[in-house]
């Protein structure tokens, strides 16, 4: 190129560059600019694919979700050591790269404007809550509860806690309250969801041991869901069902045509609370037809003959009359179970929240036992848990059993626990704790004067809410410890303690399939909010029992003690070295004893823990004789039946996958709020709507003997005539519910009360 040509080209390039700048300045069409920049996605590192440039991470870390018991692994996108975004963890063995909307939005509620940032105290009964410092709050906490204890005794203060905090925190709370502060009565909101499964398993298997692993969803050829709507309530478990390659028969027992019932191959829309009769009728048909595994029954169970004798009363005629099913439907149900080679049974709140729920859960267990559908891939009598750490609560909360599934009246257990925790044996109360409803009754009767509520919203969620809230007024001192001072319960507190939330602390959660997962501290708690763990440390110190808890210095230190507590128990986790091992393995299912780990040694010196393990593969149960029990009882009618004055039966349950319980957290996310109906609504059958002359979307008044509410009518044949359905997330629902309880598990029966409907 000649020099002059070069100069010419440079000139031309300069001219073009100038034109380009000019064109951008007065762009006819602006393809880029500051607004376009806002949404630019950049190639992500860390195997993430493209991510929003403004939320680009400089590292990632994995932790488990803190909403439900599925226990999904979330990949937290970190920048400068803090969480900026998240996505579902591709390799976590639970969720395989997926998450439900709550998981995706898990970080959002942490930044809600109504987070508690200081303790709040109510100077007098009618005064509003006022900010105070931790010093004053702690002194007040101890003074008031000590005063009550001094004048009314150790049974006069109780706590109600949660399945939403870490195992280490639950253990700390239970031990602090009983061993350190010397109180007796405490319970948790797991009473509202999992108490039934706990009792049913304990009685049938000898230990509270859900036997399954999520791979069973994929390995069954028949799946029976009783009172469960996993499509909405556990979408990521349903993901595993959808991955089942065996074209399985999916049977759903539910009075409503739920999303899960729509997706099923067979739906049995029985009358509400006729499930026990149905299950006994099925047992009778299976036995009479010889469709049972006699060898398994003989080798591994006790009480079958009595059970077989008992269920002969459940003739097809009786079962059909009471459930509303046709004889051929009942027959098809039994035949499908009989034809299945790997049949798994799954239940959730439709069973657990019933007036005879323990026996109902055990009737499901009985079906699995008698057909030999347990301990093999794709089988099991499987309770799907509710809350993210209901399992941790069941094992380590030191509420109903002595910590770690021990017995407070067994001398060896007392000695073991006192030695490991370094406490005197005599501080372990022998007296069993009262259940939730008994604590509420105790307050009503003036026996309980002080209440400490931790991370639960009883004023919304407890059955027959109006009564509960009136009873709360009788307390001398109510302390609420929560992320938000705005919950219905915190609004009634005399003292509010601001708690850090999931993602703002370390610890472990145990999911439905017994997998211990890790949560990490990836977000700074606002203001002076402290993790429940730190709050318990402070209370121990201020109460004057700090010495007893000197070793409870960090969540991981507590985890090491819990490992020791679990030694030689069915839930032995002595093989889990530390948090890092949990992290590296994508969570670890219990049990994992030291012996189990040495059995998993790899040639390189490491250990490879199988990522999915189920219980009872050897047919050996946790009872003293190793045999499972058949337990049964004559069904009873639900205590409140529809009648002339209140002719409809009210069903309650999960509304959408974007709502969690009382909405204290899910209500804080704009996205989740968009994904559920804002106002309370009621599902009503078109026939009933016509009979009552209720227009679609009209506002109706629904009342029971206990209270009333207004709701928008959603007219749909998915509920049967004579029944209505209202989601449980709306605070007004429990104004209506009838306080009935299962006599074994003390779990409330939320899904059956009589109501009437009128145009509003």
């Amino acid at each position: 190129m000649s020099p002059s040509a070069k100069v010419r080209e440079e000139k031309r390039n300069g001219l073009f560059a100038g034109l380009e700048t000019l064109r951008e300045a007065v762009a006819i069409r602006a393809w880029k600019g500051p607004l376009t920049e806002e949404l630019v996605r950049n190639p992500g590192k860390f195997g993430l694919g493209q991510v929003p440039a403004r939320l680009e991470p400089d590292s990632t870390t994995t932790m488990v979700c803190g909403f439900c018991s599925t226990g999904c692994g979330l990949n937290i996108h970190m920048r400068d050591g803090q969480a900026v975004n998240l996505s579902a963890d591709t390799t976590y063995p639970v969720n395989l790269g997926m998450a439900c909307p709550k998981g995706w939005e898990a970080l959002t509620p942490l930044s809600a404007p109504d987070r508690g940032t200081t303790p709040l105290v109510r100077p007098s009964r009618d005064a509003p809550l006022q900010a105070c410092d931790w010093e004053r709050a702690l002194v007040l906490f101890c003074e008031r509860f000590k005063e009550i204890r001094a004048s009314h005794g150790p049974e006069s203060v109780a706590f109600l806690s949660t399945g939403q905090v870490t195992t280490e925190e639950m253990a700390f709370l239970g031990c602090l309250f009983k061993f350190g502060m010397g109180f007796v009565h405490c319970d948790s909101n797991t009473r509202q969801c999992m108490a039934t499964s706990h009792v049913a398993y304990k009685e049938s298997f000898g230990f509270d041991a859900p036997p399954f692993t999520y791979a069973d969803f994929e390995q069954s050829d028949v799946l029976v869901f009783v009172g469960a709507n996993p499509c909405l309530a556990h979408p990521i478990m349903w993901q595993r069902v959808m991955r089942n390659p065996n074209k399985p028969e999916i049977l759903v027992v539910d009075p409503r045509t739920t999303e899960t019932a729509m997706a099923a191959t067979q739906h049995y829309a029985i009358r509400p609370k006729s499930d026990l009769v149905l299950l006994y009728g099925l047992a009778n048909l299976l036995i009479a037809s010889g469709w049972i595994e006699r060898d398994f029954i003989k080798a591994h169970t006790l009480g079958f003959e009595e059970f077989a004798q008992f269920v002969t009363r459940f003739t097809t005629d009786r079962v059909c009359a009471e459930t509303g099913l046709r004889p051929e439907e009942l027959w098809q149900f039994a035949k499908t179970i009989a034809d299945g080679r790997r049949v798994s049974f799954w239940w959730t709140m439709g069973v657990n929240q019933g007036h005879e729920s323990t026996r109902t859960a055990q009737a499901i267990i009985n079906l699995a036992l008698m057909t030999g559908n347990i301990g093999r891939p794709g089988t099991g009598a499987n309770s799907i848990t509710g809350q993210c750490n209901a399992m941790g609560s069941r094992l380590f909360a030191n509420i109903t059993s002595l910590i770690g599934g021990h017995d407070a009246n067994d001398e060896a257990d007392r000695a073991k626990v006192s030695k490991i925790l370094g406490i005197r044996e005599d501080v372990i109360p022998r007296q069993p704790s009262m259940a939730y409803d008994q604590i509420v009754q105790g307050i009503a009767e003036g026996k309980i004067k002080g209440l400490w509520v931790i991370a639960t919203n009883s004023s919304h969620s407890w059955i027959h809410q109006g009564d509960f809230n009136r009873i709360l007024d009788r307390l001398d001192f109510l302390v609420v410890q929560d992320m938000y001072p705005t919950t219905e319960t915190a609004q009634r507190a005399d003292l509010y303690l601001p708690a850090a939330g999931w993602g703002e602390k370390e610890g472990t959660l145990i999911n439905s399939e017994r997998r211990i997962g890790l949560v990490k501290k990836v977000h700074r708690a606002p203001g002076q909010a402290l993790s429940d763990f730190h709050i318990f440390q402070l209370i121990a110190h201020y109460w004057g029992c700090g010495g007893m808890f000197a070793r409870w210095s960090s969540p991981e230190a507590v985890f090491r003690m819990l490992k020791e507590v679990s030694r030689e128990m069915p839930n032995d986790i002595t093989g889990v070295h530390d948090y890092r091992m949990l992290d590296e393995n994508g969570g670890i299912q219990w049990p994992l004893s030291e012996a189990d780990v040495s059995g998993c040694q790899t040639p390189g010196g490491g250990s490879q823990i199988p990522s999915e393990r189920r219980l009872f593969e050897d047919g050996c149960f946790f009872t003293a004789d190793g045999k499972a029990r058949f337990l049964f009882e004559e069904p009873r009618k639900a205590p409140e039946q529809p009648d002339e004055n209140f002719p409809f039966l009210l069903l309650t349950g999960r509304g959408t996958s974007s709502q969690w319980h009382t909405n204290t957290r899910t209500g804080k996310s704009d996205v989740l709020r968009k994904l559920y109906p804002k106002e309370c609504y009621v599902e009503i059958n078109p026939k009933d709507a016509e009979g009552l002359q209720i227009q679609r979307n009209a506002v109706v008044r629904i009342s029971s003997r206990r209270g009333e509410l207004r709701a928008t009518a959603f007219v749909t044949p998915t509920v049967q005539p004579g029944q209505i359905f209202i989601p449980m997330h709306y605070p007004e629902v429990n104004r209506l519910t009838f306080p009935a309880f299962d006599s074994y598990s003390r779990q409330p029966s939320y899904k059956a009360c009589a109501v009437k409907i009128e145009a509003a």
Partner: protein
Amino acid sequence: MSSIALEVNLIDELLAEQQRLTPVERFAQRHERAALPAQARYYSDLIPSSKPGLGQQYAFAVDLDVCTGCKACVSACHSLNGLEEHETWRDVGLITGTETDKPYLQTVTTACHHCLEPACLEGCPVLAYDKNPETGIVRHLDDQCIGCQYCTMKCPYDVPKYSSRLGIVRKCDMCTDRLAAGEAPACVQACPHEAIAIRLVDVAEVSAAALPGAQLISGAFDSSYTKPTTQYVSKKRIPRNAEPADAHALRLEHAHWPLIIMLLLSQMAAGIYLTIAAMGALPGGSLQLYAAPVATLGFLALNAGLAAATLHLGRPLGAWRFFLGLRTSWMSREILAFGLFAGAAFAATLFFWVLPRSPLALAGLVGASAMGLLAVFTSVMIYADTRRAFWSLPLTAVRFYGTTILLGATAAATAMSWIGVFFATDLASELRIAMIPLIGVQTLLFAWEFWSNSQALRDPSNPCHRSLRTIRVLLPWLMSARVVLFVVAIFCSLVAIAASGPISAIGVSVALAATFASQIFERFSFFTAVTAPRMPGGI
């Protein structure tokens, strides 16, 4: 050290500890080396292995049989695209069967349908939408957008969403750069049941299938309008009478107050020019006496209306690009027509002040009137072109031209009557000529409106039924208020005709106020009670 100090120290120590986050290095960092997106193992079958060929484009394909309504797609799209807190580009609705004994539920996930003939793109005055010729993806150019929000009215699927913080709309771009890099869009990556995929569709086939009456799914808008490309697939039969869960829900749409003001004032202005032009055509009138101030009133009203219109724009500084959309956008045409109207109005007004007796003045008046009518026509077409039943061409034309006559003539009459009072001139006969037909028109319009509304309210199959129910249920005060205002307007007009001097001027002024107020209510319901088509919503 005292024990108090110790205790304070423990609180401080734990507060400090609370703020120390878990160092990432404490745990395994398994992702560190991964270069390829780890999720690819789940979605590689859910995106096409090749780019669209000739006559093809990308499209969302939804397998309804496996969608359970978990809504993970909505939140994943939100998080992986870094949207604003309340912003979502995907939504999940529900359709239900209405047969009493056959329960049917189907959740429907939906985002932008990347239509063959995108209404958003056609309506955009500044070409802020681009349909990529290779991929078919309809992309929104955020920096080009002026925030007029017309696309939110044009799209029958409620896809573009306006952000008041940014002053623009934004929408799904099918994660276009993810697709370009061989990655799946966020929603495809996140669906636990693999219900959403990206497929190549044949443009000719989509076009042929989008016959009048065809719809994507029960409750969706007629596909022939925009030819949406999303494919909803189900092996189950969707019951014929299935309807969206929100089919009977009534909601008020955005009122768009700047547009209400703009429409009323611009139509009033057009009507003012038209009125004085008509009066001028009458023999023996005293046009020269009042034409200049009345025309000025028209000019001021028009400019006030235009000022209100700019308030409606999120980013008015980009509005100069309006000419880009003239080929397809009624919004562009409206801006042009309003510009011409403003020019003609200015000229006419100027001529009446400077050369009141020149033929130029009359010519200017005729020009301004014609331009005014044209401008109102473009306004009518803006709404008619959205294909919303409540905004249909005849309904909107009667409303807008009705406003033009009512407000224009009443405003002109008001101005004339006060001119008469101040200049002690008798304009009563001319005033009567303006007022008597006006009372007739007002009565006719009101009767027509009442009659058509009650027809629509009575008949559930009437396309405007839901809008009228919305007015009846959610704006129950509106019709009574308008009846009162109508009676006041007619009464005061009669007083104005019967009386003279200041009484007459006050009468016609009150009539103007009442009519204007009534028109505000009318236009408020025009915007808020319109049934905006959208994909099936939730309960």
